[in-house]
């Protein structure tokens, strides 16, 4: 295996594109090194992108936030403006692993790992976040939900690197929340998860909503019916019940070592309901 | 003479008896005579047993004395973690 740490994106892309063997991007490495240890992958080339200028920065822009691909989880929570605007996204990213993992793991890496159980991703999808992808043919901007295609696989082509995550600007009275279910309090992979992103009107009525569920299908699931259940409501019991039912109906999970179909289906609804309540309160609504 | 109670796995090897009477002053004699009378018990004893004498559990050290009329239980050697 060769290790390269170029200082610019163009070189990184070229190295990856030219490599004949198995080539991987290294940002935080918290998935990559685990897979190497397990012998699941045997890289010929690893390109460390952390030396690329600006790649570990969070920037507030005219259109929202730009989060570099190498920003570690812990740095997200240290950015007060980001936490204020997107608390759900930050709490999702901060749930990836332990404090030790937080020192390394990145949202971009979490996304490119392609797991439907990724804690960092549902809230991004609920936020309609986009990613900037650099590749041999230049840059393109893609919706976050278009990156993972199935467990462990992404739509990225050879030589392509996710360079940054773009979060849109927030209308007033907006917020989000992310909840996951794990058996312990830490250190587990999500058995099922839910992210809810809400915008309220002046009276506290939900005027826009987006709900995404993790670990209930091969990829993260956006549930329009769940959003519909919330829009126009002040999160009364009935709309919350509808939300939960819509979420459970959208699940097509599997039985595995972490949970059962029955469990995931039911708890997806429960978590979505609870996340909606948190997001609603954060957006200034009163229940 | 002491009455030696056998644990479940030894009973079939002693013709189904719950206990047997043996003339023995110490553990060594007990093992010897038990093996003579019930040869099937010998491999179990060789593998290591515990001997409860009046409620105190001993290993299989030969010198340990068996007081007259003592309550004796042969038990499997207890493992530990």
């Amino acid at each position, binding site marked *: 295996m060769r*290790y390269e*740490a170029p200082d610019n994106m163009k070189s990184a892309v070229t190295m990856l594109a030219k490599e004949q063997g198995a080539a991987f991007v290294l940002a935080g490495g918290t998935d990559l*090194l685990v897979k190497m*240890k397990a012998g699941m992958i045997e890289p010929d080339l690893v390109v460390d992108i952390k030396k690329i200028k600006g790649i570990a920065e969070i920037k507030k822009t005219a259109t929202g936030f730009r989060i570099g691909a190498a920003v570690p989880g812990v740095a997200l929570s240290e950015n007060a403006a980001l936490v204020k605007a997107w608390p759900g996204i930050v709490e999702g990213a901060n749930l990836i692993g332990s*404090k*030790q993992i937080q020192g*390394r793991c990145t949202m971009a890496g979490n996304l490119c790992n392609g797991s439907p159980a990724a804690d960092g991703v549902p809230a991004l999808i609920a936020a309609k976040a986009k990613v900037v992808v650099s590749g041999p043919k230049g840059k393109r901007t893609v919706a976050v939900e278009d990156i993972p295609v199935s467990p462990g696989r992404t739509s990225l082509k050879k030589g392509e690197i996710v360079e940054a995550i773009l979060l849109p600007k927030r209308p007033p009275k907006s917020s989000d929340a992310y909840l996951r279910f794990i058996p312990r*309090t830490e250190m587990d992979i999500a058995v099922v998860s839910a992210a809810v992103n809400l915008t309220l009107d002046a009276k506290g009525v939900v005027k826009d909503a987006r709900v995404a569920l993790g670990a209930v299908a091969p990829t993260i699931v956006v549930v329009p019916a769940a959003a519909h259940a919330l829009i126009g409501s002040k999160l009364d019991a009935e709309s919350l019940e509808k939300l939960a039912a819509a979420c459970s109906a959208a699940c097509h999970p599997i039985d595995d070592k972490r949970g059962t179909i029955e469990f995931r289906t039911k708890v997806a609804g429960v978590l979505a309901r609870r996340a909606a309540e948190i997001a609603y309160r954060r957006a200034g609504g009163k229940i | 003479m002491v009455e030696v109670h056998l644990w479940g796995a030894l009973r079939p090897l002693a013709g189904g008896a719950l206990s047997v009477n043996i003339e023995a002053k110490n553990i060594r004699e007990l093992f010897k005579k038990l093996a003579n009378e019930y040869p099937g018990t010998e491999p179990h004893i060789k593998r290591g047993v515990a001997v409860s004498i009046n409620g105190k559990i001993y290993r299989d050290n030969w010198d340990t004395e068996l007081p007259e009329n003592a309550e004796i239980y042969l038990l499997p050697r207890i493992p530990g973690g």
Partner: protein
Amino acid sequence: MSGVFVSTTINGDSVEFSCAADEPLLDVLRNRLGMTGSKEGCGTGDCGACSVTVNGRLVCSCLVLGAEVGGATIETIEGMADGDVLHPLQKNFISHAALQCGICTPGFLIAAKALLDKNPDPSEEEIRFGLAGNLCRCTGYDKIVRAVQATSKEMRGA
């Protein structure tokens, strides 16, 4: 296998080493530099026994490549005491019996120090979550949490 040559700083000392490109920092520390205080309990970032800080960030050294740490500043358990003066955490781990077998202890100490550096007065809950990335199988964590609480109090002069 292409080797990599790395210059770095460990516990304040300039250190140079060569390692394989795919070699974790933990293996470099243990096998090449003789610093066996960092332990491998899993090699997959689940137990925290290999905790070190790299540029002030708490990480599992099993999930960092040796090749990555060129120019970095690394702190390990071997550098925690100031000469023969133990760090208050080290002292309190002994006096509170916060260790039984001791295999997880270096990782806990590094993680606890990182926690207190950031948050000098943590609540019990903050301590428990701050140390959730470190597994201990002997103590039930009770005396570890108490040792960290005592250290926090002592260092704040409270």
